[in-house]
């Protein structure tokens, strides 16, 4: 029987995920009446800065975070609990195998995933229909589609780059499609120069879109949520985003008839398709006081039933990480699940700001944003990124 206090910090501050998580915690609490659970939900953006503080002081027992490089500093600083023991349990070892790599550093596991989600292009089917367009498969189709949309007085894509990472998504896709997953990972690891011709090719492709006016104006002033209305109101036809965008779009009144999804198009036919599928995770801080309960909570979160529930269309609307749980029959989830499991031979990336070290991610995404506003500054931007690369990876 578990007793004591269990403090959980969440970054799921948007209304839908927040409710989902709170409901899940409610179910956990029911099972463990002896446990006093305190949940703190922190604004998602603020959470990213505050995690440092609460991992060292006033530490919760469980905290959400992200996989891969994003958790490395805390692992290295010894702030995350080694939960390899959990991963050794057959229940988890068998069912979570696919994400084990993303949570492994130095051969140990430092947390458990609770959801992941595909990225891809969400678009207004009704507008495509109106313009007689179909889902593009190749870069040329993409361009011609886009041109038609622009001609109809709309932008092809909405995007809000105020918090930078959305531009990182675009870069992920363009670069992975142009140069392939391995190159992309090398770039994130600082092994390739930013002034490399191949990188320039990625930007050249991007520039093509920018120059034709594919993106909405003033995206640098919006957060990703603030960019949603453009799509809802039909001023933009599509959004390259994670699956979490579906919920607010639906909430804003778009029906499933109006909304659809396609995989980001092929650019360089010689490289294999690769996808972004960021994994969100739960960790036990090393300074947690109730690690026993925390472990139990992690087991609970990754259990097949919970995974089914929290990731279904009414809740997170994302993909469960437990192989035993079922993917909701929500059309986007089905499509995404299929895409990730069958049509991503190149590999699955976490996301630019999780794959690249934080400092590099920051500088580069700032560069992407600048590039999207001022594509002509490319050389200057790349030079700057190259300098940053040399400084950052040097240390």
């Amino acid at each position, binding site marked *: 029987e578990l007793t004591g206090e269990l403090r959980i910090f969440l970054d799921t501050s948007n209304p839908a995920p927040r409710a989902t998580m709170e409901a899940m915690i409610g179910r956990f609490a029911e099972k463990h009446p002896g446990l006093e659970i305190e949940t703190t939900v922190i604004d998602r*953006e603020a959470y*990213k*800065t505050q995690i*440092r503080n609460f*991992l*060292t002081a006033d530490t919760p027992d469980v905290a959400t975070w992200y996989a891969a490089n994003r958790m490395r*500093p*805390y692992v*290295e*600083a010894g*702030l995350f609990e080694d939960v390899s023991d959990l991963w050794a349990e057959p229940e988890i070892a068998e069912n979570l195998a696919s994400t084990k790599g993303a949570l492994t550093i130095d051969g140990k596991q430092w947390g458990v995933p609770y959801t992941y989600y595909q990225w891809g292009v969400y678009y207004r089917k009704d507008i495509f229909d109106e313009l007689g367009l179909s889902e593009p498969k190749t870069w040329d189709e993409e361009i011609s589609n886009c041109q038609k949309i622009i001609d109809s007085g709309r932008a092809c894509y909405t995007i809000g*780059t*105020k*918090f*930078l990472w959305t531009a990182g998504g675009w870069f992920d896709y363009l670069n992975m499609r142009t140069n392939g997953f391995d190159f992309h990972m090398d770039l994130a690891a600082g092994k390739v120069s930013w002034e490399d011709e191949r990188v320039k090719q990625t930007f050249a492709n991007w520039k093509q879109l920018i120059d034709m006016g594919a993106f909405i*104006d*003033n*995206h*640098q*002033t919006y957060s990703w949520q603030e960019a949603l209305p453009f799509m809802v109101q039909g001023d933009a036809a599509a959004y390259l985003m994670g699956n979490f965008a579906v919920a607010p779009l639906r909430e804003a009144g778009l029906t499933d008839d109006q909304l659809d999804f396609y995989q980001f198009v092929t650019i360089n036919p010689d490289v294999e398709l690769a996808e972004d599928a960021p994994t969100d995770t739960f960790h036990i801080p090393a300074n947690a006081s109730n690690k026993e309960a925390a472990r139990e909570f992690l087991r609970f979160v990754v259990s097949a039933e919970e995974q089914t529930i929290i990731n279904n269309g009414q809740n997170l609307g994302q993909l469960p990480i437990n192989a035993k749980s079922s993917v909701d029959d929500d059309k986007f989830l089905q499509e995404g699940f299929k895409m990730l499991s069958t049509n991503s031979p190149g590999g699955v990336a976490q996301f630019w*700001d999780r794959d690249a070290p*934080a*400092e590099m*991610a*920051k500088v580069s995404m*700032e*560069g992407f*944003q*600048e590039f999207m*506003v*001022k594509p002509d500054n490319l050389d200057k931007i790349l030079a*700057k990124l190259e*300098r940053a690369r040399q*400084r950052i990876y040097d*240390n």
Partner: protein
Amino acid sequence: MTAVDVTEHESWFHRNQQRIAPWLFLAPGVLFFMVYVIIPVFQSFNLSLYEWDGLGAAEYVGMRNYEDLYWEWVDRDAFYVSLKNNLIWLVMYLLAIPAGLFIALFLNQTVWGIRLYKSLFFFPFVISQVVVGLVFTWFYDPTFGLLNEFLSWFGLGPVNILGDERFVTYGIIFAGLWPQTAYCMILYLTGLNAVDPEQIEAGRLDGAKGGRMLWHIILPQLRPATFIAFVVTIIGALRSFDLISIMTQGGPFGSSRVLAYYMFEVALSEYGFRMGYGAAIAVILFLIMLCFIAYFLWSMYREEKGH
């Protein structure tokens, strides 16, 4: 009773109370201030010689952080942008002083309800910069902002002030000028109250009018108000953090950063945690401010000695 037995009866404390008392009164305040302000300043100096991510152990790197800053300067990088913006802030923010003076002159009348007007004009100063930042973010909003609405009446716009690296700093400064102008206005209003009416009359007899009266006779008398306005404006400009944090987070692509924000970003934000580097930036900021602190203390010292 003789002097001797009087002193014997008194305790040591009682006899020396005038010498001890100030230290007792000072102790708590000085202690607090030392621990939280003075010592941290030196700690920051020290920290700026280290590389530390706030988690592990700090590594001594000597002047490396400053070297990096130097290279950022040479490369026209973030540090350069921040410093440049800080200078723009310093200069532009000073506009609050003439603006405040102008409004103060405008309101320096006795008509019915003027007190209420004065206090309403002062309003922006009491509001948190956070709220001011939000208000102006919406004011500038490229789609529905009042500014563009307004510009469209003249067939201008739309402009995206906060999204354009040419305008963004000015846009934020403008938002900051709003409360700051209100502040300067109050200082000048009280200053104007203290203007010696006989000097104005002397000026009238001497044939000074309007602008010349203002320049030759009123403004010199407002010197104390101007001095204070100057000090608080400079300090406000150098400390500017809230507005940038709320309105742009330093964006777009870092073009609205100032040192204060940059150091926060480097030290405590999502992708940051280079404490030593942040401390180095803070030290630079401190050195700039030190000029003004020294100036202020100097003028204060002169005043003290003058008495």
